[in-house]
């Protein structure tokens, strides 16, 4: 963990306190109605829309001086945008940052949920591009809000059914819709459906921020999260037919790394912290010697 001096000239965590209050109110409402998208007056941030402004605003609103922040993108701490967002909070909030999942109090993420189970007291903040799970079935906000209000989710089931009729299975691999506490259908953000089961009954608070679309939604700890499916076509997650080439982990999500132009591939943990801690424990995969050079 590393502490950082805060850059002067900006309020703690960049946003002014009034804006933070407005965002916290939206967060509280979102927690009170799990899975419901709460509109909020999203601000322009000094990074582009679509690059995590929603997650950044949520993090800025809940961050305290004693928090320890971890930022991941694609499961990794060292992808460029994760580095950029982590640096932003180091500069404007001066908080401690970490790459270790277990040490973090707030984890901002894009596209993944860490492999290690989160615990009580941790907050997972998701960056969300399109918060509306019905958007690609019905482009109009006025319509989709009505559909949520009336719990009218038939269209979504028809879409999943058509997938099965056409392909024999549901052809949605990420941003796979979930139903929250038997009420709202929610977009889990574009995480692979592999991560959906981790949201269910999670001990951690999960907050979702969509800056450009100006919506916040939330899953309080121990919330019932069910991936939509049919009795005869139950929900299934992706499976990889080999372990991580670096740490030998199984039942984790893997990135495919292209090694050469002759079809050479290796599969490694997408969660870099998980992979590194396993390697630190002496666990090895088949290519770990070669990759460590």
């Amino acid at each position: 963990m590393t502490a950082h001096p805060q850059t002067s000239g900006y309020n703690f965590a960049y946003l002014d306190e009034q804006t933070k209050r407005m965002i916290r109110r939206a967060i509280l409402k979102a927690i009170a109605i799990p899975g419901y998208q709460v509109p909020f007056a999203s601000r322009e941030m000094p990074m582009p829309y679509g690059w995590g402004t929603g997650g950044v605003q949520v993090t800025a609103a809940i961050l305290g001086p004693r928090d320890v922040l971890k930022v991941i993108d694609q499961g990794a701490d060292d992808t460029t945008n994760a580095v950029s967002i982590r640096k932003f909070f180091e500069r404007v909030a001066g908080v401690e940052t970490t790459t270790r999942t277990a040490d973090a109090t707030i984890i901002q993420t894009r596209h993944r949920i860490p492999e290690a189970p989160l615990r009580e007291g941790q907050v997972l903040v998701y960056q969300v591009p399109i918060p509306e799970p019905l958007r690609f079935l019905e482009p109009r906000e006025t319509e989709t809000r009505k559909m949520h209000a009336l719990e009218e989710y038939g269209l979504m089931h028809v879409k999943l059914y058509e997938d099965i009729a056409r392909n024999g299975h549901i052809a949605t691999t990420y941003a796979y819709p979930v139903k929250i506490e038997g009420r709202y259908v929610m977009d889990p953000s574009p995480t692979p459906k592999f991560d959906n089961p981790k949201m269910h009954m999670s001990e951690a608070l999960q907050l979702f921020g969509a800056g450009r679309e100006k919506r916040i939604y939330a899953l309080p700890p121990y919330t019932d999260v069910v991936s939509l499916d049919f009795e005869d076509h139950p929900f299934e997650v992706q499976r990889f037919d080999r372990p991580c080439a670096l740490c030998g982990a199984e039942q984790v999500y893997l990135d495919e790394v292209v090694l050469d132009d002759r079809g050479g591939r290796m599969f490694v943990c997408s969660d870099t912290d998980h992979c590194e801690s396993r390697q630190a424990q002496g666990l090895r995969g088949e290519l770990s010697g070669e990759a460590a050079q």
Partner: protein
Amino acid sequence: MYVSVKGGEAAIDNAHRLLADRRRGDRSVPALTLDQITEQLALGVDRVMSEGSLYDRRLAALAIKQARGDLIEAIFLVRAYRTTLPRFGFAEPVDTGAMLVERRISACYKDLPGGQLLGPTFDYTHRLLDEELEVDARIEPGRMREGASEPVTRIVDILGGEGLIEEEPGTNGEEPGDINQTPLEFPLSRAMRLQSLARGDEGFLLALGYSTQRGYARSHPFAGEIRIGEVEIEVYLPELGFAVPVGRVQLTECQMVNQFKGSAKLPPQFTRGYGLVFGQSERKAMAMALCDRALRAEELGEDIVAPAQDQEFVISHCDNVQATGFVEHLKLPHYVDFQAELGLVRTMRAEFERANGVFQQAQAESAIEKKEAAE
């Protein structure tokens, strides 16, 4: 191999350093000053102020310099800055009738009170590249009108005097909405739509306005009036009990006058499309006015048949800071989602090949059967 993915931090620092180098370019060429930008690239500055929603020529010029002339990037810089500024309140509606006009034209009347005033326009220039501008040739100062100017009546007031154009509802002293302070929830009031259009992307609104002229929600527009000039901004101070001027801004206003045959509720009359932007930006003001009129379709009982009339479509997509962010976010890594899709496509191809193999086998078998039957 895998190790090469790491090192994002050093890569970002080096990229920023190279960017600063390229921004400055050849060091033997003098650096641009902000004064040069505000004075000589004034229309670019105006666009950045307008779509950046901040009236400050110097900051807009700085943003243009910092963005290497990329105006949308400059607009983004200005927006990100303005969001950190405190909000004091809101101004009184500006009186564009009292504008100190530098340009004012109407396509509806040959002559009208205040006259037609061309001002500094490209309109009747021949678009021939001027080689004299390659050097700093001496430029004659502009000629100014002498003596007091007569009042420049707004054309909508002329038409309104005869009752031929719809009345504009007043504000009734209530606080107008603010797209910076409230989340967008459709349907939007006209005031909120106009705020969004005023900072909307010039190119996007231009294309939509153009589409209405080509028949996608035709609104039979006349450029009732375009005026450019300075107006005073006044803010009401409750402690004093009256409004006080806080400064002047240059504005471009466009009043589009549109034919309207009337409906069950309304008599035949002219209707209005309105455009108002910071600085001198006639194209944007006109496009905004066309879009505003098209978006009033529902209120006026017209059929909604074209994209320009659809407020969710227009307003959700007109902000270029949002649009460029989301389009360009495709550059960010999508490894894990792509991995999920790779897995799916591989599975589906395997299924396809299996099914195709079965099909071809069945075809071959039935061909043999037919042959045998024929024999």
